[in-house]
């Protein structure tokens, strides 16, 4: 777990270095990577687009919350609003069905501008939120989320109020329709993998280590020369970049965006996804998102089978949330870790139990 890269001999050739790097990758990564890459061979369009595509997007928004909460100790409820802001900007600056508002900018301009503006907005949210702790951070970011929802619903000149924007589609880059299930699957998979590895990499960089230091012991960090407030705000900015990319993918997937995209239920869903998955590792939110999407997609069928009204899927999600919070406060990841520890304990009764959790 040292900060430095894996020890390598000084004169190793690029080839040997690459081999060492590849050998350092855990087997689980190869397996999951292969399954995800080959998924389009077995899964149908509905699964690729509606289940996996959506899970990757929600997982990325959950990941931006995991970055703040897991590494920074700051629970922000504004991440969905930041994603939605980027989505709105794509509709406003690019093309949509609302001709009187959309500016028809080219994609290579509106995508970076959308990410930049969303990150700037998040920096502002962060600047106000980081001076508070715990429940007050949640309240301030919730206030931002609620304000964003009501503002988009009431403002017609920019956000087109209640109806929002329809017909927002990705640019036909390289002659590919990126809303087709297979291209969209790979697009979202690529973005999700990139943000996952970025967060993993940054967690061991000076900034990531310092962020975890700020989480554990802000007073000591400041006694080591770190500007604690600046580090926390910068974490909001970075997390926003991931949320913004996810927001853009979300508007492309739905081909529309409206105030409900960042309504309070959606805001809370992100929190549920991150917590059910687990905040200890960047993979947690993706597990949480997949569980959420599967429940949301298939629980109406199950409920219908049990002769219950099929709009009760929220009941199932709520019950699932209760079970996780009650039995495993650190999410599915925590459950997995405890199972592994139990197995290890059984194998070696002398050493297994002594490990501090």
């Amino acid at each position, binding site marked *: *777990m*040292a*900060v*430095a*890269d894996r*020890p*390598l001999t000084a004169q190793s050739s690029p080839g040997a270095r690459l081999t060492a790097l590849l050998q350092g990758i855990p087997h689980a990564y190869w397996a999951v990577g292969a399954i995800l890459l080959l998924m389009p061979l077995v899964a149908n369009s509905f699964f690729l687009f509606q289940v996996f595509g959506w899970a990757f997007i929600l997982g990325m928004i959950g990941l931006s919350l995991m970055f703040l909460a897991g590494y920074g100790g700051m629970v922000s409820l504004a991440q969905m609003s930041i994603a939605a802001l980027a989505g709105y900007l794509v509709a406003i600056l690019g093309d949509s069905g609302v001709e009187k508002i959309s500016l028809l900018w080219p994609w290579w301009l509106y995508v970076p501008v959308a990410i930049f503006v969303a990150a700037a907005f998040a920096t502002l949210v962060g600047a106000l939120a980081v001076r508070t702790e715990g429940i007050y951070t949640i309240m301030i970011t919730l206030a931002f989320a609620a304000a964003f929802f009501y503002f988009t619903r009431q403002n017609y000149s920019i956000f087109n109020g209640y109806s929002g924007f329809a017909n927002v589609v990705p640019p036909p880059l390289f002659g590919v329709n990126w809303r087709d299930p297979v291209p969209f699957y790979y697009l979202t998979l690529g973005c999700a993998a990139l943000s996952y590895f970025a967060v993993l*990499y*940054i967690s*061991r*960089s*000076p*900034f*990531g*280590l*310092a962020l*975890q*230091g700020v989480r*554990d*012991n802000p*007073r*000591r*960090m*400041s*006694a*080591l*020369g*770190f*500007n*604690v407030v*600046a*580090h926390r705000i*910068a974490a909001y900015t970075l997390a926003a970049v991931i949320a913004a990319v996810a927001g853009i993918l979300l508007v492309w997937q739905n081909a529309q965006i409206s105030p409900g995209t960042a309504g309070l239920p959606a805001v809370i869903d992100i929190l549920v996804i991150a917590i059910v998955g687990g905040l200890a590792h960047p993979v947690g939110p993706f597990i949480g998102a997949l569980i959420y999407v599967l429940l949301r997609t298939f629980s109406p069928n199950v409920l219908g089978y049990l002769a219950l009204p099929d709009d009760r899927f929220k009941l199932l999600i709520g019950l699932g949330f209760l079970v996780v919070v009650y039995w495993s406060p650190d999410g599915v990841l925590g459950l997995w870790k405890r199972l592994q520890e139990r197995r290890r304990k059984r194998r070696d009764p002398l050493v297994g139990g002594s490990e*501090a959790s």
Partner: protein
Amino acid sequence: MSTASSSVISERLSAAGTANALELRGVTKRFGALAALTDVTITVKPGERRAVLGSNGAGKTTLFNCVTGDFLPTSGTIRLFGEDVTNFPPHERIRRGLRRTYQISLLFTGLSVIDNVYLACRGVSRGRFSLLRPRRSDPLMQAAHDLIEAVHLEDSRETLVSELSYGQQRQLEIALALAGAPRFVLFDEPAAGLSPKERRDLVEILTNLPSHIGYIIIEHDMDVALRVAESVSMMHNGRIFKEGLPQEIENDPEVQELYLGGGHG
């Protein structure tokens, strides 16, 4: 504007040579009705090593907290190498060469020893916001390795701090305070809870510090305190009531009455 900045520059320049390392003038700290510090005036020259003695509740740790900026004093001024830092946030004081250790170790228990020391080295240098992982050849990583050796923790380099023994945590606490280019260090009871051998190691670490690094040490163990300090300030009820050489303080009847004889022997 220009006169203001030039006065800052001249203040910095004067800070380089002639000024005192630490200068407190009439520092008072009140918590509501309780006066934790009352009109404390201390001058410590560069490279000077001072012990602050006093019973529990005398205000020693509050004094440290005011110097590092954890608390702002109710009144009075604090100068660090000639520069008025009274209203500076802690990290700005640390970047000017001030360091401290804590009475109860404040470490990052979820990180390894090397990560803790690396963070400390990073805190007082550039690239605090760097998103790039350090390479093995990173000079700061080298500095972190050297510091770990200086406090005899090289065998536990990759160990999680939560798995270190109490004594090792105290040693790490000192390593964090010596990161970068410290000019003045505040040691808050570094020997508390250490074994006799660990105390000898501690005395050795402190006496082997480069002579330009001054410090103030709070220490209940007179044996340690009087061996590593050139001068002593006695505190009682938030006031400094006596300053002098270690021998003078040791033999002072008033001090013996208040402190040495007061059930602490």
